[in-house]
């Protein structure tokens, strides 16, 4: 089975959800026209990234009757959609969230677990952290969805792997930084390394979308990519420009790679649990 995916490396309008919704619907149409089964937007694609005090005013509840989600759910009857938004829960906490929409339904919502609050980042000031990491079923297989800093930590992808994910959807709004003599920025290079590593270590598909554009002095570098279970790069987006990147995934590659390299079969989860229990109980460090 093949999965034809479109990575929507878009720019956004800061804090103007309706304008960003229109942009989503446009790009969804383009993805459909190119025959995609799935389109993946970046982190906070409906709001822009540095929302700060705009968080409460741009927040949504991912419900079928929500006027922003309604047209997106309608579109998801033709194509599966991953997108990013600010979520307000029933007790008025705000999250950086991502949703997987399919067949007119919200199949999964992930709330960002790791909120970077250091250096140029201040997410912990404005947002509550998510508290669960769950894989979920799609019509292409079981998948996991993480948001930027979530996959800068090794444990969330690992948990998703054990929870059955063969497809990893990673989405970012990652400010470009670390200019040196190299032809790409340091954080771009870092993400390409770890995405390749996750695909290789977990013998899984990694699909990554990052936004482009500027917010004040911050640039967003794009550079969406897809790695296959052998760790091979099978699609690469351009840097610093909007682009719809198409990739066709031969999902049967999972079978071939895992036959050759049964890392999943041999993973000692009970050992991990036992040692983790010991480490957390006794050896506080």
């Amino acid at each position, binding site marked *: 089975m093949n999965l034809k995916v479109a990575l929507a490396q878009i720019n956004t309008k*800061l804090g103007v959800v309706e304008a960003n919704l229109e942009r989503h619907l446009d790009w969804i149409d383009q993805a459909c026209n190119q025959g995609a089964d799935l389109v993946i937007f970046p982190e906070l694609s409906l709001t822009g990234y540095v929302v700060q005090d705009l968080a409460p005013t741009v927040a949504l509840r991912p419900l079928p009757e929500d006027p922003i989600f309604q047209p997106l759910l309608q579109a998801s009857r033709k194509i599966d959609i991953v997108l990013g938004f600010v979520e307000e829960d029933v007790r008025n906490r705000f999250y950086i969230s991502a949703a997987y929409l399919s067949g007119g339904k919200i199949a999964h919502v992930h709330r960002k677990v790791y909120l970077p609050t250091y250096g140029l980042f201040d997410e912990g000031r404005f947002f509550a952290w998510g508290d669960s990491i769950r894989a979920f079923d799609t019509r292409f297989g079981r998948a996991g969805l993480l948001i930027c800093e979530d996959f800068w930590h090794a444990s969330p992808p690992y948990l998703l792997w054990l929870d059955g994910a063969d497809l990893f959807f990673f989405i970012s709004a990652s400010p*470009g930084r670390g200019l040196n003599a190299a032809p790409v920025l340091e954080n771009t290079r870092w993400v390409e390394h770890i995405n390749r590593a996750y695909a290789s270590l977990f013998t899984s598909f990694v699909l990554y979308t990052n936004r482009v554009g500027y917010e004040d002095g911050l640039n967003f570098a794009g550079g969406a990519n897809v790695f296959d279970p052998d760790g091979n790069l099978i699609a690469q987006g351009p*840097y610093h420009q909007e682009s719809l990147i198409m990739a066709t995934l031969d999902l049967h590659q999972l079978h071939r790679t895992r036959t050759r390299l049964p890392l999943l079969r041999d993973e000692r989860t009970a050992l991990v649990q036992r040692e983790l229990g010991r480490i957390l109980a006794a050896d506080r460090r």
Partner: protein
Amino acid sequence: MTDLTINTDLARGILTDFIRSEITRTGFTRAVLGLSGGIDSALSCFLAAEALGANNVLAVRMPYRTSSSESLDHAQLVIEATGVQSLTVEITPMVEPLFDAFPDMNNVRRGNIMARQRMIVLYDQSAAFDGLVVGTGNKTEILLGYTTLFGDSACAINPVGDLYKTQLRQLAAALGVPKAIIEKPPSADLWLGQTDEGELGYTYAEVDKLLALLVDQRFTPQECVEAGFAEAFVQAVVERVRRNQFKRVMPPIAKLSNRTIGYDFLYLRDWGT
């Protein structure tokens, strides 16, 4: 030792996109900048011309009576090389009445007045030309506070403020800024014979390496000394960076209410665009 080499293609792409994005998203299409004849403003002019189209950039030369003719000539080289629109506004008759009112005025006061007068001319041209003022201050001078508050530091956007002088020179060369401008000793040209490096007491090549350790690599002053920098030099630079923090922030507002601009009223400038 820290390597300050930058990939100039990458920097060029990011900075020209930045100028285009940050000017057009607010409804403008044009830029105004002061052209001193030095490398910083030359680079900003090349970047703005590439980002917006030469015809959308107004470069303003603002000589004072004692400004060196070389400065004017070098600014002219940039105007010709980029094809931007240009204007020359002599500031002498604007600043001299104030100088005359205080005959004992020293060079620093006079220099600040000239820098602020140029700001006034630029912001007036900003309204006349319908363009935003593009700044030209680099990371070295911003950190050292080698700038006039509300003078040459005043701008709407600054594309070159995260480049040390050493890095800015690399980018200027890559964009084709004339060699004569890149190679001459940097000077604010506020009085005769003034040079940046003479006034600061050290070269950009030296201080950029130190700043890269202190600021970017987060070395302690002691670690910088251990890395080979003279202790007195390190202390002088550390103190200079600290003392000039006031030039890098908005004036503090005394907090009284529950929600105060600057502390807990937080929005990017690009809010809604």
